[in-house]
């Protein structure tokens, strides 16, 4: 058995790799299937994430203490305050630029990117980079959340462990989902939401095979976090109830508002990103978050609550303790400051800001409703709870996860009816304005056009000429069926172009069409190629894209398609096969993702 040449994730000499390979190959002796092994590892990942989130929280508190408690005291003059978030942003920018570019931005989009285009590979250094970049961003007052980072760190942990044990690509993705769900579970004490988030947003599908390890990781992580941090309800809310059924109408109204607001936030976030990236003013990448931080700091001078993670404000809004004008102001400023922090490239999550904006929006609406709208008996805090769920869903396009996370975080189940309803409606509303979610839009803007997990944009840029075969078996139009059957037996293709005696293209013989008659011996003397050929619906040329070709293959269910000369549709340039197209797609992904070569699963004896 040869030594697996896959590069080690540890930057160590070959001896270590060989030693580790021996250890990895030890496990198959127990005749464990990769699935069983996976479940075992999910425990490891869950525990690791639980511990990791505790560490991260500690790091965050330490930086926070340093930058937002000690430093302002030293500075004295409050006009110098913007320096603090600027310094935090600078640190984040430098880390992202020189250590790990994946650490930039929110994080969830990076995880999705790794799954879709990088075969589930997330570098180990991302864990460290993201932890520090986020701690500096958030600890210095940057307006973002700690959830996105913990998700990315958890995912990186899952991917690293998986690659350490040489798991296959599919299982690697499951391990990433384990890490992500464990992260959410620990940070929010929301194990169910953690599972749903991974399945709904990260993996994009709910298969039983993924479910078990993800649940295990989520639970283990919550257990570890609970051991260190005790029993926590992230938000204590009063026992709001859904009493007056007519209020459902007003909740619907709120849902519509949340949908619009969520879509507006997405647009504003990326408009800010454009501002920093495309009209860059020649600024180096590591400086941008510093500038963003400085701007946020200026907002902070006037309105400190708009900075940082903002859980206290959320809590207050949920208790209905904030007045209407303040709520409106906070909503607007949070929108601005989050866009600046994240849009400039600092490192932080979008979830906590979404909670903030949802709660302030809901609270403001609740106050307005209580004064002006009839039949409103619920306090504004109840609207704040529903508003949170609706707004988050409007940005993530994940109604299930959003509803459940809010219920888990607030411990309030009685509002579930208006909450679920409003959440789902908000997603519908948001999609009317902006089809992409806050995560998929980021990927879309990078040029990834995700269609059912396959990156169509890769295929759009490749021309048919890449895979065309100029030499191919063809059939003359008057060839009797008997000879055609012989040819099929000799060739390794299934479909053939039909040409006239001058070599001009006449049509295609598709195997699935003639399958029936092939075995009718009488037909062998009766039919000729011309009788049994068909025409492809649209002509492919050398310059057509592989994406167009893929569509043709799907429509005709053929294995082979003809490629015709531009402007001269009777002349054949060659043929393309479906398998060549898919192989080309895979190769391109490897090149673009700069991913490591395929890892083999541990072999059974």
């Amino acid at each position, binding site marked *: 058995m040869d030594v697996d040449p896959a590069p080690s994730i540890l930057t160590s000499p070959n001896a270590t790799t060989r030693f580790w390979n021996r250890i990895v190959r030890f496990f198959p002796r127990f005749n464990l299937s990769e699935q069983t092994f996976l479940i075992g590892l999910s425990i490891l990942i869950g525990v690791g994430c639980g511990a990791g989130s505790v560490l991260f929280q500690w790091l965050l508190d330490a930086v926070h203490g340093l930058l937002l408690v000690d430093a302002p005291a030293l500075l004295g003059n409050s006009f110098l305050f913007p320096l603090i978030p600027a310094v935090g942003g600078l640190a984040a920018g430098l880390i992202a630029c020189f250590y790990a570019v994946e650490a930039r931005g929110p994080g969830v989009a990076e995880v999705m990117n790794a799954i879709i285009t990088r075969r589930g590979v997330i570098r180990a250094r991302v864990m460290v980079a993201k932890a520090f970049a986020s701690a500096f961003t958030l600890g210095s007052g940057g307006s973002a959340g700690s959830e996105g980072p913990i998700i990315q760190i958890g995912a990186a942990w899952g991917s690293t462990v998986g690659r350490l044990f040489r798991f296959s690509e599919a299982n690697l993705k499951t391990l990433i989902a384990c890490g992500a769900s464990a992260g959410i579970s620990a940070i929010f004490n929301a194990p169910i939401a953690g599972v749903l988030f991974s399945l709904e947003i990260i993996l994009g599908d709910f298969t039983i095979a993924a479910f078990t390890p993800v649940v295990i990781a989520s639970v283990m992580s919550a257990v570890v976090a609970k051991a260190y941090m005790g029993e926590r309800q992230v938000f204590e809310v009063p026992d709001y109830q859904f009493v007056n059924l007519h209020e459902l109408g007003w909740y619907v109204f709120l849902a519509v508002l949340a949908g619009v607001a969520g879509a507006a936030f997405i647009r504003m976030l990326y408009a800010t990103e454009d501002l920093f990236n495309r009209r860059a003013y020649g600024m180096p990448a590591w400086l941008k978050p510093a500038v963003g931080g400085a701007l946020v700091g200026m907002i902070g001078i006037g309105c400190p609550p708009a900075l940082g993670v903002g859980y206290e404000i959320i809590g207050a809004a949920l208790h209905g303790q904030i007045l209407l004008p303040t709520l409106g102001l906070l909503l607007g400023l949070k929108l601005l400051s989050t866009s600046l922090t994240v849009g400039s490239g600092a490192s932080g999550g979008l979830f906590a800001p979404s909670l903030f904006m949802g709660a302030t929006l809901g609270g403001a609406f609740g106050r307005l409703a209580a004064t002006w709208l009839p039949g409103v008996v619920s306090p504004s805090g109840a609207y704040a709870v529903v508003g949170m769920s609706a707004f988050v869903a409007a940005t993530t396009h994940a109604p299930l996860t959003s509803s459940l996370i809010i219920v888990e975080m607030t411990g309030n189940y009685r509002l579930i009816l208006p909450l679920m309803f409003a959440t789902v409606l908000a997603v519908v509303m948001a999609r009317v304005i902006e089809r992409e979610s806050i995560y998929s839009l980021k990927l879309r803007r990078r040029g990834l056009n995700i269609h059912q997990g396959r990156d169509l944009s890769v295929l759009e840029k490749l021309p048919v000429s890449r895979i065309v075969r100029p030499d191919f078996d063809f059939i003359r139009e*008057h060839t009797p069926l008997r000879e055609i059957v012989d040819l099929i037996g000799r060739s390794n293709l299934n479909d053939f172009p039909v040409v006239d005696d001058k070599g001009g293209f006449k049509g295609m013989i598709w195997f699935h069409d003639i399958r029936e008659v092939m075995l*009718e011996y009488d037909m062998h003397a009766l039919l000729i190629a011309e*009788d049994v050929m068909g025409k492809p619906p649209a002509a492919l040329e050398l310059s057509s894209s592989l994406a167009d070709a893929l569509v043709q293959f799907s429509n005709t269910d053929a294995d082979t398609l003809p490629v015709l000369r531009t402007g001269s549709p009777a002349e054949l340039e060659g043929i393309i096969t479906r398998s060549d197209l898919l192989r080309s797609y895979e190769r391109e992904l490897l090149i673009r993702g700069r991913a490591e070569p395929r890892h083999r699963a541990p072999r059974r004896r």
Partner: protein
Amino acid sequence: MTLMEILSGRSVIAGLRGRNKREILEELVDAVDGDKITDRGKVLDAVLLREEIMSTGIGHGIAIPHGKSEYVSELGGVLGIKREGVDFDALDDQPTFIFFLLVSPMDVSGPHIKALARISRLLKGEAFRRHLIESEDRESLIACVEEEEKHHS
């Protein structure tokens, strides 16, 4: 797909009059349902052309002439019997008695092939062939075909 679906009332001929290949083919094309053809002359040309490339007299007294043309709007068939037999350049050099014409629109291969396959399968039966030749008129021909179709569902 059954043969009766392709044939229509007029397109079953118990006594063909043509005395040679060309006349027979003309007669058959004339009998195709008017709804299915937009230009009989062009369709006849297509059938004749196809016949020239390779004879459709496959032996055992059977011929299955066919053609594809843009002047055919819908798959159509004609069944014709000539009790006296005609020289149709058959593979076994024997006279041909039973003719099944099939005309089809261009660029459509699936149904066309299926119909040809079904015709061939039905005509394999020697008893069926005898009954066809012995049929005196259109009605008994149709009855004969329907009877045989039931055995090949």
